[in-house]
């Protein structure tokens, strides 16, 4: 149920981002989704890729601090209010969303939302209880 996200520590240098994407490209690793969280001094690049193991390996070989983080990816109806219902339910169950980011596979279809929630097993229960479709790692990696 859990998807491995790659988190990379980045000083706020746009050149580094280019380097990472190029490095992954050379190693035939596909980026499915990407988000950057930053402060004024530094940031973290979050990546969903088709081969997280390999991605971490090549990044670390190049000297980057890269980590795998467990995230939950769910399918959300790509229409107004789609996400709100899910968030409300998580809040009701006292589950704290550390961060999330979304990507739309193809317009008109469902959106995919990546959740980072501390208590993952509990979150999965809640989401399943709501009938939300959770995307399996295999499905994500082979998108």
């Amino acid at each position, binding site marked *: 149920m859990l998807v491995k996200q790659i988190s990379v*520590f*980045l*000083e706020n240098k746009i050149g580094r981002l280019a380097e990472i994407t190029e490095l992954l490209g050379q190693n035939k690793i596909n980026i499915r989704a990407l988000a950057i*969280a930053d402060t004024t*001094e*530094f940031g973290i690049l979050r990546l969903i890729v088709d081969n997280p193991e390999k991605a971490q390996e090549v990044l670390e070989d190049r000297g980057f601090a*890269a*980590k795998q983080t467990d995230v939950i990816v769910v399918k959300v109806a790509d229409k107004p209010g789609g996400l709100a219902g899910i968030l409300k339910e998580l809040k009701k169950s006292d589950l704290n969303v550390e961060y999330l980011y979304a990507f739309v596979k193809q317009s008109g279809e469902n959106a995919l939302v990546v959740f980072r929630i501390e208590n993952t097993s509990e979150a999965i229960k809640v989401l399943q209880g709501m009938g939300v479709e959770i995307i399996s790692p295999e499905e994500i990696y082979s998108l």
Partner: protein
Amino acid sequence: MKSFTKEQVLEEGKNSIEFLKREELEKIQVNRLKKTIERANNSPFYKNIFKKEGIHPEDIKCTDDIRKLPFTTREDLRENFPFGFIALSLNKIVRVHTSTGTTGKPKAIFFSKKDVDEAAGLIARCMRMTGAGPGDVFQNMMSYGLFTGGLVFHYGAEKAGVLVIPAGAGNTEKQIELMRDFKTTIVHITPSYALYLADILEEKGIDPEEELNLQVVYLGAEPYSQKTREKIEKIYGVNAFNCYGLSEMNGPGVGFECPLKDGLHIWEDNFILEVVDPLTGEPLPDGREGELVLTTINREAMPIIRYRTGDITFIYPQVCGCGRTHRKISPIKGRTDDMFIIKGVNVFPSEVERVLMDTPEVARNYQIVIERERSLDIMRIRVEIKKRFFDGSLEHLKELQEKIKSKVKSELMVTPRVELLEPGTLPRTTGKSKRVIDKRRL
């Protein structure tokens, strides 16, 4: 108590020890040096050394004989913290100051009642030399507390007969209010704060030259250039004097400029001054640049012999035009080590390093960048995070940043900015790498 007018006090100064003939001055030095060796022999540190090296007061026949004595270093003071250097019983000691900017073991400097008084006397002498006296209002903008720049100067200023405002450091609004309310004529301030204060005055639309009563500024605790001095003099419409001191030698007032403002007189009846080659320790002739070495010869509680200050300067070979016979040193040109001064605090990169070494999340490789932003000094610590501590959480990185910041602040008394870097981004150099990048234009 008898009161004097400023004119009387200044007149009195002309007959003082400041103008003593060289031969007479040197006689005093030899006598006091002998006495210092006798006294120092009561301290555990010197007793041990004198015994080992067979040093006796009778070995001293002229001031040059000081070269027979070993040097004392900053490390000696640290290693023998807190009481290893005291030469009096503790019940005769009335004050302790510790040096700024040290972690772990600081340097402790002890004063007897007489030492406090003598140190104050030297400050009073410095102030009188610049024309200060009864009727002047003196605002001390140096930090009070363990730092000598506040209290030691304060006592001296009282001795000089001026009205003292113990304002302390910072709190700019209050400083301005005090200067206006009490018509402050003299301030003791760091050059960087003087420039900062000028900016704030300008913002508030206060013309320092017109609306303040300032006449004299004592610039201390930080090295600065002639240009900075001229700038401060112009902005405030004052005479600015360079003062030199270090806590190991009482604090401020070791050296001070006379009205000619060309070099700082070192009070040779209280200190023996030498300039040595920092590498070999060999004494250098006057006029040659090297490391300043000072010996206290008028201190009871804690005599220090041939102290390697780490400050680079030279002794003026010629007699000063003001008539004072005490020799002058040039303004400090730099350091023999990589110490730097920020906001009046001495910072050794090794101390920053110690904090970082206690922080397992970061690597040992680091860089310190010092910049000046709006006349205020900023210390940026750039440090690489360790790969294995990175867990993908932005919060944890922010916490780490805060942790380093507060640790450095509590141990060094300077709040840094902390920059977390990717592993391997700082240049690796073999041997002594350049840790400190000082971008300030002094």
